[in-house]
């Protein structure tokens, strides 16, 4: 698991104003910036059924998926089983594949943090 270096980052999560964990890994640090710039707007609050990484129950089954599947959903878009819709690149078509993948990697680590470290809904 990536090391956690800062628990009280500038941005706060929608669910209970939690801080978004910052990891020391350079790739995840970059991914967090991308995530805050695009993904957080929905995934931080559950907008349009976007799964919230601070809620372990919404991510337990997702973190076990092959990472390539998550990349594919994030890059190309995805329809959920009840026709919820994740637009390609989170609606920010200016993002490169590498940026989207970094954001996915950060979100997975963020979800794992709450699953591993807290094990409960926040």
């Amino acid at each position: 698991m990536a090391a956690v270096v800062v628990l009280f980052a500038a941005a706060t999560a929608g669910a209970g104003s939690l801080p978004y964990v910052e990891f020391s890994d350079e790739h995840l640090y970059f991914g967090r910036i991308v995530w805050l710039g695009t993904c957080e707007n929905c995934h931080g609050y559950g907008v349009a059924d976007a799964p919230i990484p601070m809620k372990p129950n919404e991510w337990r089954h997702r973190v076990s998926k092959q990472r390539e599947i998550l990349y594919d959903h994030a890059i190309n878009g995805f329809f959920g089983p009840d026709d919820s819709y994740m637009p390609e690149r989170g609606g920010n078509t200016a993002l490169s594949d590498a940026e989207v993948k970094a954001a996915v990697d950060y979100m997975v680590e963020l979800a794992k943090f709450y699953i591993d470290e807290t094990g409960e809904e926040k």
Partner: protein
Amino acid sequence: MKLLSKSLVTLGVMATLGGLSVAVAADVGSTPSITPKAMADALHLVMDSDRAVYTKKIVNRLVKKEKVIKASEHFEDDKALVLPAQMFRFGSELAAKRAADMPDVNFNYSLQSMWPVNKQNAPKTEAEKAGLKFVAENKGENYYAEETLGGKKYFTAIYADTAVAPVCVSCHNDHKDSPKRDFKLGDVMGGVVIRIPL
């Protein structure tokens, strides 16, 4: 029994698409069994759920997934589906029209914005202005206030209206009359204002 039934008043407020209803039953002259806040929250829950279902099961499925029809602001000319925000607005207009014939049903709701495409949807009262600003700056939170208008006291609740689909963003950002053109997916674009007389 007849007396008892006469002493009960039921306010039935029919919601829009799904035909769900929220009812308040109270003994005449006694305290209502639901608070204005709970009533507003319940109304918004129905409105928001209906709109989410329309967005997902109609627009997302037919436009994005099956690609059999488009959704357009100019739905008549384009032979297209109405946009989710238009569906909501049409519902509020129909509810207001139907409520006019129901003396016991005295509430209204509307979709407003600090950045309206149509200026008539801008906030007018102080509570509307403060509430729309609050929900935009405090994502995930609602705004509640009491206000007096025309000598009558009202409970006013305001809930964030969020850009839940790319079409919300593109429509507002590209619209010639839009005063704000840098919306992103997930941004608060305005608010649902529910007003209940006290």
